[in-house]
């Protein structure tokens, strides 16, 4: 379509890399910029909704303002975070990875930039409709059907773009990252179309709606966000560290295991729900078996980096990425544990499930994508991050905030769960016990948002103020990096 591989450059990988980066600079930065914008919007709604849940009648919770009430601010936060920040950042990173891995340059940025614009139009119309009271009331599908249609149109363009890159590939081997990305772009378009058709256009009967909604949520996390983040980690860890991926077979296991079990996991959100028992049981089994690919991935990363963890001190992007991969294991393990029936009895309606979602969103996905930003943006712009201390501050603020949040919500959620399961304790008394935990949540949210604002400032600075690196230095950096990436790709073949 618009992409073309430049075969005469095959023998000059460093020049090819530079050409590829230059050709996709505008669309990738457009998606990155959109992601950063939506991260700011999502952060505002995140803070607002965590205050509202703690102190519903205080003035800072805007009591009585319909469009800023908890029931709208909370889905606004989740939708802006997932479809705004996480998805835009993931599309930008995914497209950059696919172009690099396949050695394909983009002929015209027009098509992907239009797709990005359409995506943002869908987001804005969806957010305003949600705040105005047009939510569909389906979790993670709150945007009304017209916004969903616009989003799907953009998504179809993006997936088509991604597949065009793959089909124009010039290299013989298909790398690990590419498996995940091919899966992710196809699955996301498929699941989004299915969910909107089966819930809005030709609505499913009764509880089938709930089944499809939760199937979608499970698939969105396991087969869109997860593969994008893992693809990024599989590329960046060897490229930055210079260490090859330890085992190709483990990587195969990790990928095909995820593809096999990931789509079945959603129904663990509604254990004990009004479904035939096998549907929920299938999800629980899938969630437990999912630990096989998770451990395969974790072992692979660990063994690749073994003995070289000292690098994390100086290589900030690598530090973000590896932290994210560690949290991936924790996120999946927590997910399996709270999906077993005997434990879900106590945890399923509590803050423990919120904690598990945030392990995935904040600690796993976003950590890896932050690392990707810190690595990719300087390459695209040929500039350096101003104030490395700001990046360091971002890392520590979100790590401290995140760890605090996880412990707080786990303990608070368990107390809530045991309270709810004791019929002698009235509901109001259960919620009273949560007070201090909600106060700590406010504080942890503040740390997370402060850290992310540091990231936003750093992104604005490199985009608007930072000057290009001198030509000679740039050339050296480019050639180093090119040889690194060649090595990395060979090593996984």
């Amino acid at each position: 379509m618009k992409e073309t591989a430049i075969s005469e450059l095959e023998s000059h990988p460093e020049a090819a890399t530079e050409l590829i980066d230059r050709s996709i600079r505008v669309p990738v930065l457009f998606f990155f910029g959109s992601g950063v914008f939506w991260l700011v919007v999502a952060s505002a709604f995140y803070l607002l909704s965590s205050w509202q849940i703690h102190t519903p009648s205080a003035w800072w919770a805007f009591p009585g303002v319909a469009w800023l009430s908890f029931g709208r601010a909370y889905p606004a936060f989740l939708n802006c975070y997932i479809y705004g920040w996480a998805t835009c950042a993931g599309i930008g990173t995914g497209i950059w990875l696919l172009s690099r891995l396949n050695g394909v340059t983009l002929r015209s940025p027009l098509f992907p930039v239009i797709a990005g614009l359409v995506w943002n139009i869908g987001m804005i119309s969806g957010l305003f409709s949600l705040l105005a009271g047009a939510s569909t009331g389906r979790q993670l599908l709150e945007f009304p059907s017209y916004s969903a249609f616009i989003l799907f149109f953009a998504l179809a363009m993006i997936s088509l773009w991604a597949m065009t890159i793959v089909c124009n590939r010039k290299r013989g081997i298909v790398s690990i990252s590419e498996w995940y990305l091919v899966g992710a772009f196809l699955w996301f378009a498929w699941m989004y179309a299915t969910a909107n058709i089966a819930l809005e256009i030709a609505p499913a009967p009764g509880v089938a709606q709930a089944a499809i909604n939760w199937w979608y949520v499970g698939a969105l996390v396991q087969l869109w966000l997860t593969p994008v983040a893992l693809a990024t980690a599989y590329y960046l860890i060897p490229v930055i560290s210079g260490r090859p991926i330890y085992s190709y077979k483990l990587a195969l296991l990790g990928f095909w295991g995820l593809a096999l079990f990931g789509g079945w996991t959603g129904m663990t959100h509604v254990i004990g729900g009004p479904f035939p028992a096998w549907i929920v049981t299938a999800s629980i089994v899938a969630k437990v078996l999912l630990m096989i690919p998770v451990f395969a991935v974790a072992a692979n990363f660990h063994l690749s980096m073994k003995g070289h963890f000292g690098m994390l001190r100086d290589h900030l992007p690598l530090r973000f990425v590896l932290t994210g991969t560690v949290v991936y294991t924790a996120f999946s393990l927590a997910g399996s544990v709270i999906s077993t029936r005997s434990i879900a009895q106590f945890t399923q309606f509590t803050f423990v499930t919120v904690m598990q979602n945030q392990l995935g969103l904040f600690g796993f996905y976003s950590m890896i994508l932050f690392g990707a930003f810190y690595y990719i943006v300087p390459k695209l712009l040929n500039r350096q991050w101003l104030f490395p201390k700001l990046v360091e501050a971002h890392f520590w603020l979100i790590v401290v905030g995140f760890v605090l949040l996880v412990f707080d919500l786990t303990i608070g959620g368990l107390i809530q769960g045991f309270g709810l399961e004791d019929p002698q304790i009235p509901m109001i008394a259960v919620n009273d016990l949560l007070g201090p935990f909600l106060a700590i949540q406010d504080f942890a949210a503040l740390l997370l948002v402060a850290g992310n604002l540091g990231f936003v400032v750093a992104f604005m600075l490199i985009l608007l103020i930072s000057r290009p690196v001198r030509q000679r230095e740039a050339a050296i950096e480019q050639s180093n990096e090119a040889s690194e990436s060649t090595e990395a790709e060979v090593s996984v073949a």
Partner: protein
Amino acid sequence: MNKITGLFFGVFVLFGAAWFGLVAYPYLTFAGLRQAKDDATGALAPQGNPGTAAQGARVYAANGCLYCHSQFVRAQDEGNDIDRKWGTRRTVARDYMFDRQVFLGTSRLGADLSNVGVRQTDPQWFYRILYSPQTMSPEVSMPAYRWLFVTREIQGQPSVDALKLEGPEAPSPGYEIVPTEEGKVLVGYLLSLKKNYPLPEAPETTE
């Protein structure tokens, strides 16, 4: 696995399996549900909901009630919902067969609402908790939904729906606080939430 066609094939087949199991299968099978007939009385259950309940469900969705309230009762061996008096039996697929929208929910910061229309039958109770939850109990963590109400001058007879409030929350003399159309249909919907009819697949739990 170096062949890109093998990758595409695997990606479609594996995702397709879950798609059939959790999307296509429920979509087709739940359409086949029928009302249950009580052998003794000949009554059919569940009965469909009035049209206002469907409109009220839209208001329920718009204001995000589902982020704090669930709408399903677990069986006795899966949780203590029945001991908490949220229902006398577990809820099953047939309970929801007429619902245009199903709000199962995943959080219980608030009470389960599967049978709230059984526990509370007075619309005033619902108007009051929506308008000013803190007057019912100071510690309750529910926000107030004041945009579902209007304060207006009393024209002739006071409205039957007017809120009966005392103290600082009460309207000035000659004025009344009444629910808007949205407020009324929402309460209509909440009053319709009753799953207390017998179903053969979910016998009532006896102590």
